[in-house]
């Protein structure tokens, strides 16, 4: 890493660490949402950006992860710090079996993407009729005391949730940076660029692709646990919906697929955009459902058409040019 990048990271880290001391609750909630999508985008990016496997069904892991930990807490009083391991293992197993089925039977490209959607949708409708976790009526966790921090039970102040997701996002960034320079990272990139050639070189593409799915699923499961205990309510139509999958992938796509900073930059741009759009829509008096999503759609369209590699590569070139 160049010194410029280290300075950039240190500055960003300092601002993010100090944020709760000077920001109000609204700013903190926007920042929490930004970090949530930076984290989830980083998780998705490992599978698509590094290994080239396009998933449009990541809401599956978000939902399973969230529901598993929440149900253990709700029914048996098992605290989330213990329940999250169950969520992670469950999602790893699901990811591994789905990946194994798909890759064993040669499902690739568009078909693989559709398979991920099919699994997520199948599960969404299944959970609508799964009464043990409340079915389509949803499951609600008891809201704890807002001023008392209880990290093991994930009950506490907005600042606590903010620091939890900040730590997760930082860890995801570090893990991605390490993975990208590891043996797995190089194998994944070889598979992404040309799978046949990678196989011809003796890379066990089956095993490495599964690894990418499993890591991505495990990370997304944690995002689900966070989301469940942050919002305290879970609905299949919310957590498993394809719109969640789309939201997860927007950040990395806008920021730059396959890059380390892309998911973070994309999530930040989206958070600013969402906030700006809310302000603009309010100021103009256009408070009709759909306006915000329309703006998302237009931005996605513009980025895909004019910046096919995302914003980060362009910005990185600018940063290099300055020195």
């Amino acid at each position, binding site marked *: 890493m160049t010194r410029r990048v280290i300075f950039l990271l240190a500055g960003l880290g300092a601002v993010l660490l100090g944020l709760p001391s000077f920001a109000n609750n609204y700013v903190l909630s926007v920042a929490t949402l930004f970090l949530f999508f930076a984290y989830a985008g980083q998780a998705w990016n490992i599978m*698509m950006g590094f290994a080239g496997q*396009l998933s*449009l069904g990541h809401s599956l892991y978000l939902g399973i992860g969230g529901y598993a930990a929440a149900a253990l807490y709700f029914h048996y009083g098992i605290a989330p710090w213990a329940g999250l391991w169950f969520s992670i293992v469950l999602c790893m197993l699901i990811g591994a079996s789905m990946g194994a*089925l*798909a890759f064993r*039977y*040669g*499902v690739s*490209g*568009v*078909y693989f*993407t*559709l*398979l991920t*959607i*099919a*699994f997520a*949708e*199948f599960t969404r*409708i*299944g959970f*609508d*009729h799964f009464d043990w976790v409340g079915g*389509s009526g949803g499951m609600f966790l008891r809201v704890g005391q807002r001023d008392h921090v209880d990290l093991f039970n994930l009950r506490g102040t907005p600042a606590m949730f903010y620091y939890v997701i900040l730590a997760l996002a930082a860890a995801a960034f570090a893990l991605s940076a390490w993975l990208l320079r590891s043996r797995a990272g190089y194998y994944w990139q070889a598979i992404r660029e040309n799978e046949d050639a990678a196989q011809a070189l003796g890379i066990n593409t089956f095993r490495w692709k599964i690894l990418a799915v499993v890591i991505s699923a495990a990370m997304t499961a944690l995002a689900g646990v966070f989301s469940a205990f942050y919002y305290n309510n879970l609905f299949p139509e919310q957590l498993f919906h*394809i719109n969640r999958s*789309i939201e997860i992938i927007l950040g990395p*796509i806008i920021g730059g*697929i396959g890059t380390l900073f892309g998911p973070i930059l994309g999530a930040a741009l989206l958070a600013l955009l969402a906030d700006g759009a809310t302000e603009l829509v309010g100021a103009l008096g256009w408070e*009709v*459902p*759909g*306006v915000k*999503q*329309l703006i*998302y*759609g*237009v931005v*996605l*369209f513009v980025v*895909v*058409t004019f910046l*096919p590699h995302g914003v980060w590569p362009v910005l990185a070139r600018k940063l290099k040019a300055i020195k």
Partner: protein
Amino acid sequence: MSIDLIGIANVVIAGVLAGLVYGLMSLGLSVIFGVARVVNFAHGEMMTIAMYLTVVLFAALDLDPFLAVLPLAAVFLAFGYALQATIINPFVTRPAHSQFMLLLAIAVIMTNLLLIVFGPDARSIRLDYLLESIELGPLLIDRGRLYAALVAVVASTTLFGYFRFTRTGTAIRACADNWLGARVVGLDVKRLYALAFGLGAACVAVAGCMMSLLIDVTPALGPAYTLLAFVIVIVGGLGSMSGALLGGVLIGVSESLAGLFFTPSAKSMVSFALLILVLLIRPRGLLGNKS
């Protein structure tokens, strides 16, 4: 027991009739993918737009949906042609995920424009002459479904004939079979792609027109029908025209049987289970080619 069998027969007939309309919608998706190699992720959204246009034309001008079919198909043909020629054609050589995102963006824009213009409430069309069912012995056939299915069959047959017997249709098929070969013999591939997208959009318009007789329309229908179209096309075989119709009928019947035996809200679960099975066991679909 005999009453049950008649009940089941009625449900199967209703499923077949709705399935033919599904089939026509999916035929559009299959043509677009088969020729232009574009994964039209805005397919259900396009159909929802056609449904709204049908509803609006009926409410404002009292235009019968069966008469609205032709003008709507013409408008969608032009719209699809323009969309492919201007926006999508530059994406033909880009990676698959890039195309996917483009169409996804278009789909999001379409759904939310509909939501802004028409609001979230459901709208429907009631035609008096469709209210009475046809009695065929012990069987009851819904008139609206029957006519809608007939229109779908006529439209599909016309499209089959176009691809089989006209010069342009043959050229489009050549494009689908061998893109490079088609260019070598001097075909304007980009124009034929645009035409194929237009024809696919016209199928969607006719299907949307007919769907507005079967179900109420809301802006949120789009994604669900995009997925349904993909399920059908993959079950039938992506790129196979007769496969799309067969897949439509299969899904139509399985949906209505699932509604009868389980609960109507779980009906698409059966479709997705079917999709997962087909993807894993026979990825090219029931009638798909090897390649």
